[in-house]
């Protein structure tokens, strides 16, 4: 009972992370990434009785994913590549109607306006540090900016 419960707990906790990891290693090839992710956790199930679940299982999963993806790349065939859109807002508003007034920013808080300005400052290389400055992770910063952009789009 213990090893099955441990496996299920690891699957719930790390499946998404391993999936995203495989996506990166396989150049955003979604089908390949799904197959390899499944292989990682199938391997976990096969070897569960010989694994020490008190050890660093996260590291084991990443190492297994790395190995499986490398093996896959060696026998790679043409597959579907996932291509998303950088701009998730949808239709871009007509910027010609804009003047230099601050009315469009009425829907945002001062904090959001400040964050937006810093994010889109001249120095692109500073965005990595911006997250740390506000005590956020990269993904939190990205999602925050996207939420602010959506609010802004509605008010334009």
């Amino acid at each position: 009972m213990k090893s099955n419960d441990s496996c299920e707990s690891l699957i719930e906790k790390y499946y998404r992370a391993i999936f995203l990891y495989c996506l990166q290693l396989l150049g955003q090839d979604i089908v390949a990434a799904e197959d390899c992710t499944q292989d990682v956790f199938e391997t976990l199930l096969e070897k569960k009785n010989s694994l020490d679940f008190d050890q660093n299982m996260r590291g084991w999963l990443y190492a297994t994913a790395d190995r499986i993806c490398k093996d896959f790349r060696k026998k790679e065939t043409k597959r579907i590549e996932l291509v998303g859109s950088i701009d998730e807002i949808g239709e871009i508003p007509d910027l010609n109607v804009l003047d230099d007034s601050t009315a469009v920013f009425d829907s945002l808080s001062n904090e959001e306006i400040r964050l937006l300005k810093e994010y889109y400052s001249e120095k692109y290389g500073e965005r990595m540090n911006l997250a740390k400055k506000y005590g956020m992770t990269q993904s939190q910063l990205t999602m925050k900016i996207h939420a602010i952009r959506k609010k802004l789009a509605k008010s334009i």
Partner: protein
Amino acid sequence: MTNRELIERVYSNHSDAEYLRELQDCLNDELKKPVSEQDFDLIEDITEAIAVLNGTEQYVSTRTEQGIAKIKKDIQQQRRKKMRIRFGGIAACIAAVLTGTNVLSYSVYGQNVFSAATQVLQNDVVVDFSKQDPTSIEVGNAYEEDMRQICAEHNMDVHLPTYIPEGFEPTEYFIDFIESDCQESLSFYFKKGSKKLIFMAIQILTEEGNIPLGIPCDEHHISEQVIDNTVVTVVKEDNQFNAVFMIDQVQYQVYADGVDYDDCQRVLESCFE
């Protein structure tokens, strides 16, 4: 930067493309390291940010849910397969469904020694629960909460032993649908060193599923007990204890190997508490 310039920058794909490249470069630097040196927190953080920028976050969430469900289904199938193999492996020790054998008349053992439900065969004892008529017959578990939870998860309402001998640890449990026999069985395995204890409950789903249980035995050390108005057939042989009984369309079996018979009896009686 004027407000207009800011907004133009916000809606420029160019700026986010730059950020995406920046994130990708950082990630690639991390992935170049040996796996043992990689910062998994950073990798997870950046891959999530990339998914958001790529607009694939929701898709990844959906596929993750589906992938997890598939793996869990595989786990369930493994459990059922293991039980079938295990039952086959210890068939000589536990009760098995008999399809038909030569039957010796129970009168060899004397009239009315056993209820009409129990028939002694050459190499087995057969208990036909449909022939039991309890009214005419004159005869503590540290894991109980876990066992009850498992039963509840599988919609099985069965009696469970309230006593498991000290030192026994649960190893596995199995749920299996035996469709051809219209039964659903649930079994819990306990071990203490080389000693084994198995509790099994077979829920009869249809009339066809109410099939007599057979207990392989050589010496025919058989007895019947009446516990709480229920007839229990017990075989004790070669340091093995086998007890079968039926309550409310559920056939029960308590099997033990290498366990003191008094402890076995306590386990059996605790099923009725």
